[in-house]
């Protein structure tokens, strides 16, 4: 049940040994195309000016980060149920890429907030939630690194992945209540404007590009995990 060979890793390992990762190539090209559209073919926002363009990176990265952590939780549940190590590798890969995407969100956010809000950081509910999300999944990776036994690592990570996803609504609620009950002089966050069509198109293109990039990274990371498990199995013999 816990043997990595159940994953049929031989074929995956052989494929990744050489040649071009087409999905990765397509994803990089898609990102380049999306950035070109963002920079040259999308109009400036009237009030925020060029700073607003970071939005086309920020929001797709955030959406894909949420998706990544959804994958971690669902793979966790499925792993505890089925005990298939492929699911744990998927969770591991998705969590790592999710942390990268969340880091992108946490970097691009302040870059935008500085000119528009006038501050790098504010304890707004959504910012706080993103920060805690980052902490949860960095903790998840710390836990993975602290366990040698393969099956135990998979089980513990699955538990933390599931509990982490249960925690998110509670953190959201408590920081949201905190803010609304305790209003402070903060720069008001603009309510989501209905985007003009050219901006919306750019956003959708960018989101598709980021999602492709997410899939390409997870696939690469998954292959690495498969080969590592295979190697550990051989060394164990």
């Amino acid at each position, binding site marked *: 049940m816990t043997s990595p060979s159940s994953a049929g890793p031989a074929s995956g390992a052989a494929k990744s040994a050489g040649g071009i990762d087409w999905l990765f190539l397509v994803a990089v090209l898609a990102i380049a195309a999306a950035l070109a559209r963002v920079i040259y073919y999308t109009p400036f926002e009237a009030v925020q000016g060029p700073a607003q363009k970071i939005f086309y990176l920020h929001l797709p990265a955030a959406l894909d980060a949420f998706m990544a952590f959804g994958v971690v939780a669902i793979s966790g549940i499925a792993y505890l149920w089925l005990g298939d190590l492929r699911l744990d590798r998927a969770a591991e890969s998705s969590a790592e890429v999710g942390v990268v995407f969340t880091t992108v969100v946490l970097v691009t956010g302040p870059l935008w907030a500085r000119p528009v809000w006038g501050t790098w950081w504010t304890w707004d509910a959504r910012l706080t939630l993103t920060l805690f999300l980052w902490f949860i999944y960095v903790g998840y990776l*710390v836990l993975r690194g*602290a366990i040698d036994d393969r099956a135990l690592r998979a089980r513990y990570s699955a*538990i933390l992945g599931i509990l982490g996803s249960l*925690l998110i609504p509670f953190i959201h*609620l408590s920081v949201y209540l905190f803010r609304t009950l305790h209003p402070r002089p903060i720069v008001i966050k603009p309510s989501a404007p209905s985007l003009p069509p050219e901006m919306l198109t750019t956003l959708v293109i960018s989101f598709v590009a980021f999602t492709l990039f997410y899939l390409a990274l997870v696939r690469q990371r998954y292959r690495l995990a498969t080969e590592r498990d295979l190697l550990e199995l051989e060394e164990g013999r």
Partner: protein
Amino acid sequence: MAPSTLSAAFLIARKDLAIEFRTRTAFFSAAVFALLGIVIFYFAWDPTAVASIDLAPGVLWAIFTFSGLLGLQRSFGIEQADRAIDALLGAPITRESIYLGKAMANLVFVAAVQVIAIPAVQLFYGVPLLENAALLALIALLAAIGLVAVGTLFSAMAVNTKLAEMLLPVLSLLFFVPVVIPAAQATARLIAGRPGSEIVGWLKLLVAFDIVFVAACTLAFPFTIEE
């Protein structure tokens, strides 16, 4: 005949509390730690700039989580010596009863530290905590259940990792956020003499957290045990 889950849980809780009562090492260190924390916090701020009524709830609940961690660390740590955990696992009881028993013992431990810490905050910070003792006890109980539910599970996990004691705070503190925020906010309103309607929302949040995480952690616990 194998005892039921709940009665087995009581037996395990009694065993852990008997060990603690006879040695009293963990309790005393946690209590002294809490008192020290309360005193140090007092000197870390400027009393002319921050009113103690604003500071006390935060200090109380921050200290509560840190001293709670001390007790939680021992919870499964004491089973490591002589592989006592194997005897527990070999006993004809359900895995859930081990978790519930450990959690009950931890709850008593955390509550006992609170019984010392809360009057200490009242004394040192001069805030009217005990005037609404019943409500405060309710907040403390709800917060303690949430803290212990998650902390007991992570304690069981942390002892089996390479990082051991390091990992418990890293994992637990995040999960204590939705416990500390409502508890501190509710306490702040309580001592400020705000109407009860302002506290109800925070209490509901604590109750919801307790229900979700007691259920989730009880279900998850059997997976943390090595077969």
